[in-house]
């Protein structure tokens, strides 16, 4: 009964069987990595190495003094061959540090420690997480140390570990729960301690039966409640999972901490565990490589900065020319124009989608069938939002149809029989609203 309605969300074909049962495989070391200095929400980090420098795996190569930013580490050992603008999977172009691997994979000294996190003070743990460059790994890549250090006036009472993984194709969180269960548990304990909360929920979609079982076996019921939530897209969206588990609503433009909640992805918990217990900075992540156009779909452990072309080559290349190359899930992921972009901290998936998967034909006028209204989890009228936004009526969309409530989950565009680009129009209108607000601010 989300938002007072039984009906919301959609049931797209999950396509998860291609990789759900495949154990995480280590990808071979790439010959070269392209590491963008901006892989997170916030200010780009600034390179602290220069061309020709020798670096070791896990060595800090870019940092920033900006309040919202994240450190960047080398993911291989070798030589910095260039620092220049390269294609970026989110920002188009981004300053990147290009490191040629020496193939030895020598780790920096500070990265090989073994410590008992319980002996550490909270501020030490916080520093470790900050220095390790950990960001939210569900896709948004919000720096974790900021989430974990809420302002004093925000009282946090609940921690939600998001393991819903509602996006089709992706099986990263699923495999992590199965294979890294203990590290997940430790990560959760660390976060719990840092925030000093007692109330912990782990939301897992009920199609991951094995993961729910393993997690229940390992994690004590008193330390975290594991909730099997219905399999439905977008159940893993931050606002939706908060509403679903706690019945609290996060207003547009607000953060979960405003309602006393911190949401962390299950992969982030593992990264936090690795950083705190073993001193490993965030230099590799699990990526699902899937889609009908990929020859051998796999779950891979990939070094940050590995190019998509290397990853795809490792998975047997393309079976057919993909209609779309996606970073992330098919519902909210970002289409890539080239395989030369690299894996970044928020890359949960690399998908080569065939024409049949995409099924996009030319859009036509809205026929007012109401499917979008029925599935919108935010209780909006996407039909009208799409029509108004298309024509640039951003104010009307904002004032009469709550434009800013839209979480851009894409349910409306998915179900639309007229194949209208509703989400695209909504994004356009949101930008118009932001521009207008900025103009007002300038005056």
């Amino acid at each position, binding site marked *: 009964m989300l938002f*007072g309605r039984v009906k919301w969300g959609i049931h*797209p074909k999950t396509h998860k069987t291609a990789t759900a049962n495949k154990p995480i495989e280590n990808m071979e070391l790439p010959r070269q990595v392209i590491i963008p200095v901006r892989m997170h929400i916030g200010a780009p980090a600034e390179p602290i190495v220069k061309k020709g420098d020798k670096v070791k795996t896990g060595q800090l190569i870019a940092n920033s003094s900006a309040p919202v930013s994240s450190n960047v580490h080398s993911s291989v050992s070798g030589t910095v061959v260039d620092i220049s603008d390269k294609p970026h999977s989110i920002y188009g172009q981004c300053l990147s540090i290009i490191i040629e691997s020496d193939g030895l994979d020598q780790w920096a000294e500070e990265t090989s420690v073994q410590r008992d996190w319980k002996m550490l003070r909270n501020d030490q743990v916080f520093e470790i997480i900050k220095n390790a460059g950990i960001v939210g790994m569900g896709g948004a890549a919000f720096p974790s140390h900021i989430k974990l250090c809420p302002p004093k006036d925000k009282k946090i009472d609940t921690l939600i570990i998001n393991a819903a993984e509602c996006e089709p194709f992706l099986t990263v969180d699923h495999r992590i729960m199965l294979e890294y269960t203990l590290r997940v548990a430790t990560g959760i304990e660390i976060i719990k301690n840092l925030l000093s909360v007692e109330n912990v929920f782990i939301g897992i979609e009920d199609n991951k039966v094995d993961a729910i079982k393993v997690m229940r076996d390992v994690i004590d019921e008193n330390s975290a409640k594991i909730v099997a939530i219905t399999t439905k897209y977008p159940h893993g969206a931050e606002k939706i999972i908060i509403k679903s588990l706690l019945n609290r609503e996060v207003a547009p433009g607000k953060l979960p901490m405003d309602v006393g909640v911190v949401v962390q992805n299950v992969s982030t918990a593992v990264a936090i565990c690795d950083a705190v217990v073993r001193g490993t900075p965030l230099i590799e992540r699990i990526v699902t490589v899937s889609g009908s156009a990929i020859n051998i779909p796999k779950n891979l452990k990939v070094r940050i900065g590995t190019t998509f072309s290397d990853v795809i080559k490792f998975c047997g290349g393309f079976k057919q020319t993909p209609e779309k190359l996606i970073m992330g899930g098919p519902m909210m992921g970002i289409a890539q124009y080239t395989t030369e972009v690299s894996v970044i901290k928020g890359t949960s998936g690399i998908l080569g989608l065939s024409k049949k998967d995409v099924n*996009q034909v030319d859009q036509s006028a809205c026929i007012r069938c109401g499917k979008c209204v029925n599935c919108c989890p935010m209780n909006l009228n996407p039909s009208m939002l799409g029509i108004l936004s298309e024509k640039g009526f951003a104010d009307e969309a904002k004032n009469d149809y709550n434009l800013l409530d839209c979480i851009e989950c894409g349910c409306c565009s*998915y179900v639309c029989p007229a194949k209208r680009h509703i*989400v695209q129009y909504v994004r356009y209108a949101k930008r118009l609203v932001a521009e207008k607000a900025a103009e007002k601010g300038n005056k």
Partner: protein
Amino acid sequence: MREEVSTNLELEELSREESQIFEISSSPHMHSDDSISKIMWTVVLTLMPATIFGVCHFGLTALKILLLGALSAVLFEAAIQKLVKKTITVADGSAFLTGLLLAMCLPPKVPFFLPIVGSFVAIVIAKHSMGGLGYNIFNPAHIGRAVLLLSWPVAMTTWTTMDIRVDTISSATPLNILKQQGYPHLIELFGSRANMYTDMFLGFRNGCIGETSVILLLFGGTVLIYKKYIDWVVPVVMIATVGILTGIFGSGGVLSGDPVFHMMAGGLIIGAFFMATDMVTTPITRGGRIIFALGAGIITVLIRLLGGYPEGICYAILLMNSVTPLIDKLLPVTKEILHAK
């Protein structure tokens, strides 16, 4: 020189392979299999049982009317789209459906030009002068029918004798008989009340080509509900409203009416399942659709019991079409606004 050319070619090939460019777009990158043409052709398919029954029941002239209606609608759509230089979209089936629905709501022996004129009005005036599919305010098929009824009132109300069940001869529709000769006469014609109900349920009565067989229309409608192309509340509320009101306000005082007869008579079943559920011209929210169905039911009963026409589905739906934007405006989707304004 030749060598240079060949290396150039090789380079070009290499670079093409290296710099394969993919299409980019805004998310989502996955879409359901639903499409307008799938919806429209499914509706056409679900209308087929009732249509085929109509042809068997009324003879080949009915087939001629149906074909003329549907095909001329397709032709008119193609012509108008070519004229205004739009993409021709007759393949999506919406014009075919409009023409078919219009012809199904015509008496079986109208002159051959009537379905053509009706399709012209429906497609060119009611649909494309408004901007085409998705922009029309009124149900095109019903606009076509309304224009025909006003322009050729005699042809549109001349009912032929039934070809199959000669024993229940009548040259008028049951609703006509009820209006002109009264309820006892109606029962007399069918033999008994039970006979009347059976005949009407199966479709052995006079009426428009596609509206007579209640059971086949119910079957088609149920398929659409199952496929989630129409919302079940619309036909249920509309038919129930007609049943309740006609039951209460009978000719012999309160509660003397025959709700079962009224629910099966005329174009109510086809109207409630296939016209009042037309996506474009009805409200977008469920609440709005309930109001729409309720209003259409009330107007139908008003026309049937108090108005000059024996049947009122067509006008009831058209009148409710006109208030659809208002209903949508008054009943916005958002029930709880997430943030204080």
